[in-house]
């Protein structure tokens, strides 16, 4: 029994252990240098990532409030990988920061929250995980304490996410009122599609839509991404989004299956809106973080298409896309983080002639942008390919056509940036960026991931076989 407890909850326990190790270092008297704390934290996170691959088991605990299976283990490992890369990339910024340990503490508690949320099989557990994942994020967004934009971003994040969890809770309370249960296993049988339930469901759906920044619940995204420190932005855009997408897909497919008609049309409308608005706003952005923010909104629209397919391929393609997105977006943000940490430049025009001074970083960014745009043979193409194939199962050719059109529009602004990197002349380009072993390692992981997860089709097959059907 105790053995089961350790194996099933390994993913949650490990961050907790690391959390306490770091906390004791903090409260202890020994003064460690930033460099050694970062080294220690990265080693621990790496152990955390590797340990995730061994001794896994399916099962439930706490009276079925908590459950885990092979797909959930994979999803958690993807998030572990994401947080490891984020932590590697954060080194350039944390090196001189006053509060290194706190950064890791907040990061780890957020990660733990996500794990509980993914494993939650009960609305209460789910809600607790969600809050544990969200509240530290607001504190992280404010991590550059002396910067005006950073506090503004954090304020916007906490206010709007408090509001969205209010909505979510109200939805949950009505759901409870109409069914009398909070368990995921019992809920589907009790859903009958009454008006009150649909209202509750819309509120829940809006809570989710807020978290994965689907238009029209996206307004906070660009501001927060711009204001937050870059590593936090990349964490927000990749790891936190990924976790919510995992939960969103599984909740829709299992708990709200009886309301499939309702949410299918909702997904249809919102995915079109999200792609179109995300892309059109991205076209006009001058700040590279804002542009990436809007582009990530547009990517969410594609994920909704995959999820709307309501099939095994729907789950698989969404999970696969998140994996690809971890590598791709972190590669892009990694370069932006390096440039921002060393020069403070964040405008697209600053990147003109980037290739002349920083050929390696320019190529990394270019490959990431091509992958975001979905140009084969990068992984991003396969990610979009599977999402669209999953959506096409519903024979919804209009949706597919709109998606394909959006791929072209998005190509335009990605290519503009590539053009700036390689082809535009600049009198004062970004100076040569020096980057240490952490950043190098992060870049290697991202590039290898982008190439391999696209070309090695076993990755998708593996995910597909783990996914449950609709």
């Amino acid at each position, binding site marked *: 029994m105790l053995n089961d407890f350790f194996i099933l909850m390994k993913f949650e326990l490990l961050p907790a252990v690391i959390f306490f190790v770091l906390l004791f270092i903090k409260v202890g008297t020994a003064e460690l240098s930033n460099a050694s704390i970062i080294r220690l934290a990265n080693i621990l996170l790496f152990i955390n990532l590797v340990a995730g691959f061994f001794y896994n088991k399916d099962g439930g605990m706490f009276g079925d409030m908590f459950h885990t299976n092979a797909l959930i283990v994979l999803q958690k490992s993807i998030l572990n990988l994401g947080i490891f890369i984020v932590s590697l990339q954060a080194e350039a910024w944390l090196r001189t920061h006053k509060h290194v340990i706190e950064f890791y503490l907040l990061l780890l508690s957020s990660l733990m929250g996500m794990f509980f949320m993914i494993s939650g099989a009960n609305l209460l557990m789910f809600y607790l995980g969600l809050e544990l994942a969200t509240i530290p994020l607001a504190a992280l967004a404010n991590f550059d304490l002396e910067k005006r934009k950073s506090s503004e971003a954090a304020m916007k994040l906490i*206010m*709007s996410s408090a509001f969205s969890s209010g909505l979510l809770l109200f939805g949950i309370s009505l759901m409870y009122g109409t069914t009398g249960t909070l368990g995921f296993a019992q809920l589907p049988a009790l859903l009958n599609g009454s008006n009150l339930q649909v209202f509750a469901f819309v509120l829940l759906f809006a809570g989710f839509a807020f978290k994965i920044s689907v238009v029209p619940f996206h307004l*906070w995204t660009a501001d927060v991404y711009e204001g937050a420190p870059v590593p936090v932005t990349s964490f927000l855009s990749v790891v936190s989004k990924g976790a919510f997408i995992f939960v969103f897909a599984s909740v829709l497919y299992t708990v709200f299956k009886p309301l499939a008609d309702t949410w299918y*049309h909702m997904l249809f409308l919102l995915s079109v809106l999200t792609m179109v608005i995300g892309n059109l706003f991205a076209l006009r952005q001058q700040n590279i973080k804002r542009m990436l923010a809007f582009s990530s909104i547009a990517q969410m629209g594609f994920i909704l298409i995959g999820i709307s397919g309501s099939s095994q391929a729907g789950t698989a393609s969404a999970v696969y896309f998140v994996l690809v997105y971890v590598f791709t977006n972190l590669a892009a943000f990694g370069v932006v983080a390096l440039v921002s940490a060393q020069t403070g430049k964040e405008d697209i025009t600053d990147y003109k002639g980037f290739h002349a001074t920083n050929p390696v970083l320019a190529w990394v960014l270019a490959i990431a942008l091509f992958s975001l745009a979905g140009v084969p043979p990068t992984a991003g193409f396969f990610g979009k390919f599977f999402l669209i*194939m999953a959506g096409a199962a519903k024979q919804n050719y209009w949706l597919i056509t709109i998606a394909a059109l959006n791929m*072209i529009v998005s190509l335009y602004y990605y290519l503009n940036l590539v053009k700036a990197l*390689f*082809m535009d002349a600049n009198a004062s380009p970004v100076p040569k960026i020096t980057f240490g072993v952490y950043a190098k390692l992060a870049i290697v992981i991202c590039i290898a991931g982008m190439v391999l997860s696209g070309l090695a089709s076993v990755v998708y097959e593996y995910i597909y076989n783990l996914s449950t059907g609709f």
Partner: protein
Amino acid sequence: MNNIAYLVPLFPLLGFLINGLFRKSLSKGTIGIIGCGTILLSFIVSLILFFDVKANGGVVVNYFNFIDVASFQIPFAFQIDQLSVIFLLIITGIGFLIHLYSTSYMHDESSEHFGRYFAYLNLFVFSMLLLIMGANYVIMFIGWEGVGLCSYLLIGYWFKNINYTNAAKKAFVMNRIGDLGFLLAVFWLLSKLGTANYVDVFEQASTGLSSTDVTAITLLLFVGAMGKSAQIPLYTWLPDAMAGPTPVSALIHAATMVTAGIYMIARSNVLYSLSPLTQDVVAVIGLATAILSATIALFQNDIKKVLAYSTVSQLGFMFLALGVGAYTTGVFHVMTHAFFKALMFLGAGSVIHAMGGEQDITKMGGLVKKLPITAWTFVIGVLAISGFPFTSGFVSKDEILLAVLAHSPVLFWFAVFAAILTAAYMFRLMMLVFFGGFRGTHEQEHHLHESPSAMTIPLIILGVLSLIGGFVQLPHVFGGEDFFNQFLAPIVPAVTHEGAEAATLEYYLLGGTIVILVIVYVVTKKLFAVDRFDGVYTGFKKVLADKWYIDELYNAVIVNPLDKLAGFLKNVVEKSGIDGIVNGVGKFVNYASRQLRLLQSGQVGNYILFMVLSIAVLFLVFWNQEIIVQFLQKIF
């Protein structure tokens, strides 16, 4: 023998990796040897494959399952058959000649850029081979995108020049518009048949697909071909793409990549034959492109622009052939066109080289004396493209005309008109460049010289091929044998022109061609083999010289409105629209004056209000779901 098929794309890939990774440490000589050698090896393997296929027929070689999930399988497989080996020979053969030529042409570049150039070129050949050899539409699509990417990189090779990089971007985006069609067709096929393998698709096409499906799929595929092979309305990128180095224009934008669309349609001939509507569309678009671009080519003053529009026009001819069902003829014209157009582009490169980078033909003239090999091989190219009897171009173009005549006499006369235009602009170019008096500066005249042998040898080889390349398909009347059609017969049903009637027609065409060419020769010699030529046009000629203002039209109709829309969204919708909605509600709740100041974008309360409104809308919509379902069904 088919187990060596993977070597064909492997060699260029190795070349790309070596040249790309070690370009800083390798000398130019080594880079050149690696670049050319890998392609030569590919060519040799292709030859072996060719004889194997000739003896034993085609096969599909399965390597591994690329994608394997329950709903569909996509194997990574190569299809080695009659159609693909012909393209393999064209790509590796002409590719090798052009690589060889490049070693000399690009010699002034620094070693690092030299390496970059050859790396891109090898990568291009690799992608192109993948496109040709893939045994299903997905592999083809990957190659299809790969060549687009390499073309983008190579057009923007001289990235110091802003116009060049814009041309590169234009080419890429236009290609992507076409690719969208291709991709949609693949999705359609996959969702209907669950497979994208050629063999399975063609087997199930007549049973598994409704006629609407076939028409839609073939039209969408054709949209892909329009982008890649520069047909109306997506052709404007190709002339701009001439910004790249000249050998790149010869390889990518004349001989190989732009014929990918032809290959794809010839490959899918089973599908196209099932949809007469699409075939008509293909034929009409092809013919219209052939005529439009030929008229534009008549009054261009840039040597590469003339050749570019000529390429677009010849591609139009090929589509015309495909559209009337003469698939083998279309493919045959791809081959002969690859010979003479590559020849002319390389010749143009030689001229530009000799003129010190000058591309304006009004400043040339009389070059035949200083560059005899370039000039006479170029003349061969001109004769071939104009259809001078018994050159390669004569054979292929005559076959196209006969096939069109059998299909529709009206189209035939338009096609003849386009062929006459071809002869006219080509002779004009030839006269202006090589005959008459020199019109450039004294320095240029002093500097004129024949190119080194690495550049002239490919010219001579291509010249010979342009002359005799037609003999594999010489009409029966002239004592020939249609080897080419017979070879392709297992893949593509051939259209034959037999009997006395066809023989008479052949003689008419032969006679007509000679008469027209003589007239064209006399007229152009008088007009263009001159000592002074200003190249300024007025009236209708100016319309042609300005390319019918198509670029301006596209700018006005597509590009500017898009910019405006984005600006509108940013300035009006986000500032006033969203704010406006928010403000309206503010009034509605009767706190107008106070709220109006508060509710601005960038303010959290504003965001929250917007979310509340969205939820209200969502709920209203889904509370009454039938309404929205009906609404959606009505639109879509």
